[in-house]
């Protein structure tokens, strides 16, 4: 079928999202003429807001940047400041931080897999419509997400904007019994997550593979959360302190967000696919086997399959949480005292949707001189556009409404902080007759 004329896929903005986004794709005949993904809300306000604040306030402030991944923001901030100040933490505090991150991954991945992404594959407008036909599935998702929430509440100290994590440790650490009280829930969650892997693997995926540069942390002994070298499948192998030497942020006219690129190469992919492909050998046996049982092994190059990889990472997070709980003893001192001093520190941690880079410069009074935050969604933004350019070209012959739906689904595969927007977007269709 030959398609003439100019067609525009436009997905406008709606409020009430962590970041507001819109999508614009211009098709001229069978050619994709333009792709613009607009993200309006980089964390520049917070970078400015942090200047002049004492480093002890940073974890609390950065936790408010994102309602879904406050732990990631806290962890990157705390690790960067600890590096700036030369702080060494108790190994038991390190274990607790891994448990903390497990909670956030379980919460965030479960929300995305079941409530934001699954409706796409099953043909529902949203999870509310899906729940009418798949009540047990949604009930299971709510229970699974709550297990993550319990971990975050226990370690974070309250229900939202956790306040317990601090430079040097935690303001308050749980007792051995308190973490052991999580075991029954986590054992159930592990089984539920294994079912989730099988359930997601049974969905139908578009045939769409791309040659990505995958970028993720890699640690010698474990699937990455807070530590490791930053590596890629194209030879990158750097410390967090070298991040800005190897990655650049480019201003683009159509978006307030900055486009991140690997210097000299271009777009790259962060998040579950990158972690899975670069760290498959570090997954615990139960997660590794769950992936292999459904035929999932690296390299996974189809972004739509990220829903299955997220499910595998929920398995990992449950298994890792149980491991930590088995090993945990409350530290004698929950938090080491950290004196003020001049320093610069960078850290990268693995937020649920990909690497989150923080850099802080501190003065002699421990006050923030400069702060830099590069969130995963802005790092993936150029890659999303590159994917849409390829994907939209496959869709030129489709009815516009279906093509738009499929493009939205592609965007949601990245679990961007704008995924919420794309579920409620109003579509504006513009058509131009052939010959124009």
């Amino acid at each position: 079928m030959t398609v003439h004329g100019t067609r525009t896929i436009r997905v406008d903005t709606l409020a009430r999202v962590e970041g507001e986004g819109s999508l614009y794709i211009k098709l001229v005949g069978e050619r994709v003429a333009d792709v613009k993904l607009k993200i309006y809300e980089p964390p520049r306000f917070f970078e400015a807001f942090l200047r002049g604040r004492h480093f002890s306030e940073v974890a609390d402030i950065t936790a408010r940047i994102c309602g879904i991944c406050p732990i990631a923001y806290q962890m990157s901030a705390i690790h960067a400041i600890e590096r700036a100040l030369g702080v060494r933490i108790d190994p038991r505090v390190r274990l607790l931080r891994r448990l903390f991150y497990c909670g956030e991954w379980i919460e965030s991945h479960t929300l995305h897999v079941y409530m934001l992404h699954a409706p796409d594959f099953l043909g529902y407008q949203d999870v509310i419509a899906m729940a009418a036909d798949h009540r047990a599935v949604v009930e299971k998702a709510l229970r699974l997400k709550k297990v993550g929430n319990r971990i975050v509440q226990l370690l974070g100290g309250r229900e939202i904007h956790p306040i317990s994590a601090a430079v040097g440790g935690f303001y308050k650490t749980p007792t051995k019994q308190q973490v052991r009280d999580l075991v029954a829930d986590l054992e159930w969650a592990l089984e539920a997550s294994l079912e989730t892997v099988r359930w997601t693997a049974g969905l139908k995926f578009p045939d769409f593979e791309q040659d990505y540069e995958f970028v993720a942390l890699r640690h010698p002994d474990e699937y990455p959360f807070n530590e490791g070298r930053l590596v890629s499948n194209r030879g990158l192998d750097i410390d967090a302190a070298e991040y800005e030497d190897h990655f650049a942020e480019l201003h683009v006219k159509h978006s307030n967000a900055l486009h991140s690129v690997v210097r000299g190469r271009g777009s790259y992919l962060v998040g579950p696919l990158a972690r899975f492909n670069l760290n498959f050998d570090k997954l615990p046996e139960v997660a590794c086997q769950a992936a292999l049982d459904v035929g999932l092994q690296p390299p996974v190059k189809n972004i739509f399959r990220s829903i299955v990889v997220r499910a595998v990472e929920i398995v990992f997070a449950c298994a890792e949480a149980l491991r930590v709980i088995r090993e945990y003893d409350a530290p004698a001192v929950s938090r080491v005292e950290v004196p003020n001093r001049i320093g610069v520190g960078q850290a990268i941690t693995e937020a649920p949707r990909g690497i989150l880079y923080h850099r802080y410069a501190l003065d002699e009074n421990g006050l923030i001189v400069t702060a830099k935050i590069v969130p995963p969604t802005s790092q993936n933004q150029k890659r999303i556009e590159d994917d849409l350019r390829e994907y939209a070209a496959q869709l030129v012959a489709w009815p516009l409404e279906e093509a738009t739906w499929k493009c939205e689904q592609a965007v949601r595969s990245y679990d961007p902080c704008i995924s919420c927007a794309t579920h409620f977007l109003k579509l504006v269709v513009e058509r131009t007759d052939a010959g124009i």
Partner: protein
Amino acid sequence: MLIIGCGNRQRGDDGAGILVAERLRDLGISAETRSGEAADLIEAWRGADDVIVVDAVVTGAPVGTVQAWDPWQPLPSVRTSASTHGLGVAEAIELAQVLQCLPARLQVYGIEGRRFEPGVKISPEVQRAIEEVARRIVARLNASQQGKSDSFT
């Protein structure tokens, strides 16, 4: 009675629900704060039979307007809050209806907001509305404790 204030106080008027909860706490009344994300809300009110939720809304009404509705009224075509990721209070109610886990009594107060950008100050009209909603909740609690029949004000 379970009282839940939703939002993010770092985002201007989106902090309205949180500030109502904090105002009530200042008065010695127990109130939770939540992001307003739907799954979290459903779990928060699961098992409770009398729940009040407060959130910022965008309906096109004048800023600072207070609206109150219960889930058995037709849900207004609004989206609550600027801060939740994906699904908010309205979706929590719809989803809970489908899953048949709505509290026996649930009232939502929506405070019309205007400014939701990170770091902006809360609108003066919203500030006044916060006081109004706190007063209305206190009045309802008092009426409830005096054994009077509750009325949705």
